[in-house]
C-alpha cells in the first residue's frame, strides 16, 4: 500500500468515526463506547499475523500474549455491549 493511499484511508476513517458519534443521543454513549471498544478488538487479527510470523521463543511468547489479549478485548467487548443494548426496550413487557 502506498503511503498516500494509507493517508486517504486515515482521513476518511477519522471523518467516519466523527460523523457516527456526532449525532448519537446521550443515552447511547456508554453502549457506544463499549461497542467501539469491541471494534478495536479487531487487533486480534493483527496479533494472529504477528504470532504467525514469530520465530524465536520470545516472539512466540509475546505473540501468544498479543492474541490472547486481543481475543479478550473482542469477546469481552462484545458480551458487555450486547448485554447493555439488550436492555433498551421501548415499552414495558414488550
Amino acid at each position, binding site marked *: 500500500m502506498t503511503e498516500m493511499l494509507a493517508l486517504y484511508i486515515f482521513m476518511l476513517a477519522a471523518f467516519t468515526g466523527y460523523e457516527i458519534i456526532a449525532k448519537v443521543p446521550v443515552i447511547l454513549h456508554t453502549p457506544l463506547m463499549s461497542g467501539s471498544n469491541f471494534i478495536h478488538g479487531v487487533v486480534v487479527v493483527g496479533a494472529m499475523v504477528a504470532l504467525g510470523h*514469530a520465530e524465536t521463543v520470545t516472539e512466540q511468547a509475546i505473540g501468544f500474549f498479543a*492474541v490472547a489479549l486481543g481475543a479478550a*478485548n473482542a469477546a469481552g467487548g462484545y458480551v*458487555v455491549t450486547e448485554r447493555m443494548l439488550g436492555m433498551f426496550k421501548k415499552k*414495558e413487557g414488550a
Partner: protein
Amino acid sequence: MDTPFYVQFFWFLGALLFILGLKGMSSPVTARKGIVWAGYGMIIAVVATFFVPGLQNIALMVAALLIGSAVAWISGQKVQMTDMPQMVAIYNGMGGGAAAAIAAVEFSRGGHHDLATTTLTVIGALIGAVSFTGSCVAFAKLQGIMKKAFRLPAQNTVNVVLALLSVVLGVAVIGMSPADPMLIVLFFVVALVLGLIVTLPIGGADMPVVISLFNAFTGLAVGFEGYMQNNPTLIIAGIVVGASGTLLTQLMAKAMNRPLTNILFSPITGNGEGGQAIEGTMKELNALDAAAMMRYASKVIIVPGYGMAVAHAQHKVWEMTALLEEAGVEVKFAIHPVAGRMPGHMNVLLAEAGVPYDKIYDLEEINGEFPQCDVALIIGANDVVNPTARTDKSSPIYGMPILDADMAQNVIVIKRGKGTGYSGVENALFYTDNCRMLYGDAQPMAGEIIQHLKTMG
C-alpha cells in the same frame, strides 16, 4: 508478504460490517442489531486470517484465541450492570496491550520498514502500552481494589519527564534499525510506567472520561499497527474508534465542565475548599410524608444518581413509579449527562430495571419542566443538582450544567447521610426551604414508600 485476494475480501467485509454496526448503534432502535453485525464482522475477519499463507504457530494461536475469549466471555457475562465501566476499561486495556505486543514482535523480528512505517509502529506501541497500564489502573480504582487517589510529589513534573523520556527512547528505536533489544525493552518499560503514573492520581469521578480517552488511544494504536501490517481493516477500525473516541471524550469532559487538561493535571481535591458558606438547615421528613406528597402530586420528576445504582434500588424505584402512574401521577426521569459512572450509564441501569427509554429525559429536554413539577425526587444524586454550580463563582463546580431540581415546587432527597458529594462540595439545594431530606439507603427507603403508596390505594 502478499495477502491473497480472498483473505483481503473477507477482511474488507469485516470492516464494512464494523462501520454498519457502529452506525446501527447510534440509534436505540437499531442498536442491538448493530452490535450483532459488528460481531459477524469480527468472526469473518478472524476466520479469514487463518487463510493468510505462511502462518506458523497455528496451535499456539488457537490456544491463545480460546483462552482469551473464554476468560473475557465468562467475566463479561457475570459482571453486574453497575460494574460495567470498569469492564469496558479492562477489555480496552487488553486491546492496547495487544497492539503494543504486535509492535514488540515486529521489533524483535527486526523487520525492515521505511521511516514512516517505523515511526507509526513506535507511536502505536507507545500509546498502546500507555492505554494498557492506564486502563488497568482505571479498572482497579473503579473496582475498589485501589481505594485512594495516589499523588506523587511533583506529579506533573514526573508526568512530563516520563513522557519526554518515552518519546526520546522511541526516537532512538526509530533511529537504530534494527534497534538494540535492551533499548526496546527500556522503551516499553518507560511507556508502561507512564500509563501507570499518569492515571494513578485521577479520582474516580473523572475516570469515565479517562476510560474514553484510553479507548480512543487503543483505537489509534490498532490503526498504526494495522498500517505496519498492511491491513486496511485494522486501520479503518482503529482510526474510526480513535476519532469517535476522541469526540466522545470531549463531549464527556464538556458535560462535566472540566477541560481534559484539568482532569489529567489537576484533579478535584475533594476537601471542599472554595465556595461560599451556606446558610440554613437541612429539614427531614419521613417515608410516609414523602409517599403522600408524591401520591397527590400531578407531576413528579425523579433524578437518579450513582447512589441509587450502588444501593441496587432501581427496581424498587421503577415499582414505585408504576404505583404512582396508576394513581394518575405523571412521572419522568431526568438524567444528568454524567449521572452514574459514564455518560448513559444511568440509562443502562434504568433500562435493566425495565424503565422504558421514552420516560427518560436529558438535561436539556427536562430542565424547563422543573418549575411546573410538584415534586422532584432526588435519589443518590448530589453534585448534579447543586445550584451553587449556577450561582457561586468561587465553587469548584461552578459552570457545570446541572439539573434545575431546586426550581421544583417541592424537593425530596433520599440520601444516606449528611456528607457531601463526589466533588466534596456542600450542596446548597439541601438547605433551601422547599427541600426535605429522607435519610436512609435508597433501596429500603423506596420499599417503605411503596408500602405507604399501597395503603393509600
